[in-house]
């Protein structure tokens, strides 16, 4: 429709040697390089399997109403192969279409039921053709939207007036309500997580924490130790654990000056 049609030889090079692969921005094409036997592949990205299929049909210059399924399927699979070779993640969409094409190819190879009336036997390609025709329309409509938006972007509205500030043009829909609600629930989820953590620390663990901190630091400012407490109950546990280690004479408390910070060190 809008791509330059590249006259390419219908893939006679089924098992062609590794192609010179170049990934370019937009125009996807498989160009035979006549100087060598290699294929030079310029890869583009496709919106989906239907997009790729349409591209191949156009590239092969075949009729959409009479798709040579075998040929197009081979091309399609070859394209997927290239994508995979390029380490591009081949989305499930493309693989589903590959399966559809292979099934279609098989059906086309099956001999027709000689006893069936001609009109009864629908062309197995019909469904795919309908799908492609339908998709093609919206693909073209997307182009139309694109050009409309382009023109619109060349049109400017007046700058904001003082009066606008009373009426900001922010539209709220139902999904905004849902999102806001989820955010509120999210705030709650955080709190709940903290709650669980809080309850998980035991007296024994707190004593162990204090012991480790004093040992590793040699000298520990209790303010630092207490500040690690994440809740009131942890703070209580922290205080109790200090008392406990002092009681068992594992640590000693002292001050460098009157009213100074209280420090703890291992009792020698």
């Amino acid at each position, binding site marked *: *429709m809008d791509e330059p049609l590249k006259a390419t030889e219908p893939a006679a090079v089924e098992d062609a040697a590794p192609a010179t692969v170049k990934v370019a921005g937009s125009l996807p094409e498989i160009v035979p390089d006549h100087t060598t036997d290699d294929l030079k592949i310029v890869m583009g990205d496709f919106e989906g399997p*239907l997009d790729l299929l349409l591209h191949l049909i*156009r590239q092969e210059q075949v009729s959409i109403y009479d798709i040579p399924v075998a040929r197009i399927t081979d091309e399609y699979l070859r394209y997927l192969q290239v994508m995979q070779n390029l380490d591009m993640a081949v989305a499930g969409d493309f693989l589903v279409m590959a399966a559809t094409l292979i099934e279609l190819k098989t059906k086309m190879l099956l001999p027709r039921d000689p006893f069936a009336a001609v009109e009864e036997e629908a062309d197995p390609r019909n469904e795919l053709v309908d799908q492609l025709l339908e*998709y093609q329309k*919206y693909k073209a*409509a997307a182009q139309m939207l694109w050009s409309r938006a382009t023109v619109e*972007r060349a049109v400017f*509205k007046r700058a904001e007036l003082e009066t606008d500030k009373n009426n900001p043009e*922010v539209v709220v*829909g139902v999904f905004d309500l849902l999102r806001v609600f989820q955010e509120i629930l999210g705030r709650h989820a955080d709190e709940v997580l903290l709650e669980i953590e809080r309850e998980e620390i035991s007296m024994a663990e707190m004593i162990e924490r204090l012991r480790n901190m004093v040992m590793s630091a040699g000298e520990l400012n209790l303010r630092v130790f207490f500040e690690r407490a994440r809740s009131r109950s942890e703070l209580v546990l922290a205080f109790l654990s200090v008392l406990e280690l002092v009681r068992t004479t594992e640590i000693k408390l002292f001050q460098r000056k009157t009213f100074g910070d209280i420090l703890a060190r291992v009792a020698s």
Partner: protein
Amino acid sequence: MAKQQGTEQAFDVDPLAAEADGELETADSSREAERGEADLTPLTVQNVGERKAIIEALIYVSDEPLNAKSVAEVLKEDPSVVEAGIASLVEEFNGRASGLQLREVAGGWQFATRPEYHEHVRAFLKSRPSAKLSLASLETLAVIAYKQPITVPEILDIRGVQSPSSIKTLLDKKLIVAKGRKEAVGRPMMYGTSKAFLIQFGLKDLSELPSIEDFEDLVSGVV
């Protein structure tokens, strides 16, 4: 939509819905008082020229495309009279070889710069073209615009893909809105285009979209 908590940013609810409803009024006392006052001394329009001038002023101050009905309510006049005023204003304005145009978009009228001067305007505003929509999003938007109201599986089916990510993008950009649920198994949510869609794509209304069959003719000629 801004999410910072505690800011004074305000949100308007869907203007389309608000329009359909006429108005959803707040019981703000000062406003009630003002309106009462206005009712006592109705603002009258003296003549055709004054009406035109007032319409021009109102279109200018309105932050959204303004329709005849809203103007008629303020002037307490018949919408058809206002429409005639708008038509005369449009004729005058668009007849001038000027930098501004008066155009109809999303069911209302709005002043805007003429597209032919976009380079200068852009250079002045030092702005870069802002809106960015991927082709995937545009495809999805095209499907929704022509098939609305439509469900997510129906959209994906036409596009032949499985990921609904572009639908989410369009919702975030407010180009589409939820349009109720389909009376089918699972009551899936349906989507349609928004007023913002009309504005962003410069459409008077949905009927201004070319028929989808036109694209059929266009594409079948290709191969």
